[in-house]
């Protein structure tokens, strides 16, 4: 191990050199904690955050308008179920496209596996720019550029999936065990095959787990994206809200809750089996 040579072990007690001195504790932790507490208090005051407003919210008469739920409208296929299926389809395509692209990009963006400094910085900067633009804004831009509908939503979510996945996964690669990679290099492997042989097996379970997580995120996000005209169930929710049909909205939300819950359970079960 290189640590062997770069950081020689301290001499044995009583041996030549004697015992090393105990390193002094750094006061940094305390400074950071105190700093965070002060900062939170200060910023809370700046934005006018207080808890009483939140409690008053619950006595608002708006909530009574959510009852009763018109079930015959909610359960009609064309009203809710079909747009919900569209939402599901958007999420599937976006996850596959986003996570697929994220695989090579993540390797390029990790200190451990990047082929060279240039690739590392270019991918890092580009992905940071992509991530700096919120998903809702991507959807708005794309709806403006290619028109209202599921197509724009799918693109927006693909970009969003890519950005999130690359962030999560490249950091996992950073933390991966470097020793198999050293072995692959020592065998004279080129860069990409060495990474494939030495690093991919270690991080693949995380990749699968993150992809399933991104899929869950996409289901929820594609509902939100519908609000800006990017297709799916979100568009229905927005239309009903504009006409103050809050009973219908509650019905839709309940169905969404059931669907998201079921998908999450399947995803958890899959993850347990694959990872």
């Amino acid at each position, binding site marked *: 191990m290189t640590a062997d040579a770069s950081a020689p072990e301290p001499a044995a007690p009583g041996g030549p050199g004697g015992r090393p001195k105990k390193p002094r504790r750094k006061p940094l932790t305390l400074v950071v904690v105190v700093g965070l507490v002060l900062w939170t208090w200060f910023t809370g005051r700046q934005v006018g955050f207080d808890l009483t407003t939140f409690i008053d919210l619950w006595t608002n008469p708006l909530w009574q308008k959510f009852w009763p739920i018109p079930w015959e409208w909610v359960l009609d296929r064309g009203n809710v179920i079909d747009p919900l299926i569209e939402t599901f389809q958007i999420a599937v395509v976006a996850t596959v496209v986003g996570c697929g692209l994220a695989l090579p990009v993540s390797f390029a963006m990790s200190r451990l596996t990047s082929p060279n400094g240039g690739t590392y910085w270019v991918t890092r900067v580009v992905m940071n720019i992509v991530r700096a633009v919120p998903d809702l804004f991507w959807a708005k831009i794309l709806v403006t550029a290619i028109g209202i509908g599921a197509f724009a939503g799918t693109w927006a979510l693909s970009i969003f999936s890519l950005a999130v996945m690359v962030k999560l996964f490249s950091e996992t690669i950073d933390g991966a065990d470097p020793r*198999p990679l050293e072995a692959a290099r020592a*065998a004279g492997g080129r860069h990409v095959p060495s990474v494939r042989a030495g690093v991919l097996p270690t991080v693949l379970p995380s990749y699968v787990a993150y992809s399933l997580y991104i899929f869950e995120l996409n289901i929820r996000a594609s509902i939100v994206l519908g609000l800006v005209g990017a297709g799916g169930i979100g568009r229905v929710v927005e239309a009903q809200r504009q006409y103050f049909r809050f009973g219908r909205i509650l019905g839709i939300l309940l169905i969404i809750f059931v669907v998201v819950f079921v998908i999450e359970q399947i995803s958890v079960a899959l993850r347990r089996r694959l990872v």
Partner: protein
Amino acid sequence: MIELKNVSVTYRGGVKALRNLDLTIDDGEFVVVVGLSGAGKSTLLRVLNGLVPATEGSAKVDGIEVVGASNATLRQVRSRIGMIFQTFNLAERTTVLNNVLMGRLAMVPSWRSTFGLWPAADREIAMQALERVGIVEKTYVRASNLSGGQQQRVGIARALAQQPTLMLADEPVAALDPVTSRQVMGDLARINSDLGITTLINLHFLDLAQEYGRRLIGLRDGELVFDGDIADVDDDTFREIYGRSITAGDVLADTDT
């Protein structure tokens, strides 16, 4: 044939790991390197395959200069040097076979190895390597499910799969129990005599060094302080290399196996 001339290595931060080392090793030799932790044993091995660049001097393996070599040259040199690690360095989450195939990386086109489309001939070489270390029955087992001794044999098979002319073993038995240690050392000695592969092994157990070594090299603070036949070695030699008297921690014992 290995030729080191005036090799020095200084790590960032100023630690001098090797100082002005001169060393020649002929084909087929079985050399044991001893020295305390931090004496430069690991650095010496890694200079030979360029994993650690020498800051000074010249290091030639089979006539090819490693110091300052291009990436392509380094890969070519490394492809003929098998390396065995103290902590095995296996990709534990994949099969034994995939680990051994890692030894074929330099000989297989990148597009094939990247997508795992290993040629049948290379799979055959990998299987033969596993047969030679006697664990071919574990070919499709996940590496993490093997014992330490078995994992190290996979490490040896991976090095063998390179069909190397030189084997570098960095404390190959430090993570193993005495009985397994002797089995692994026996494997390495047998491979050396059967296949004539030049072998360089870092050890810190003196009795193992005396038992299996033929030529002994001693390092102290990055300097070569002993180089000679193992038959000429006694406790005084080790005292000279270690700079202190020999203790129970320096021997593996359990010799009655």
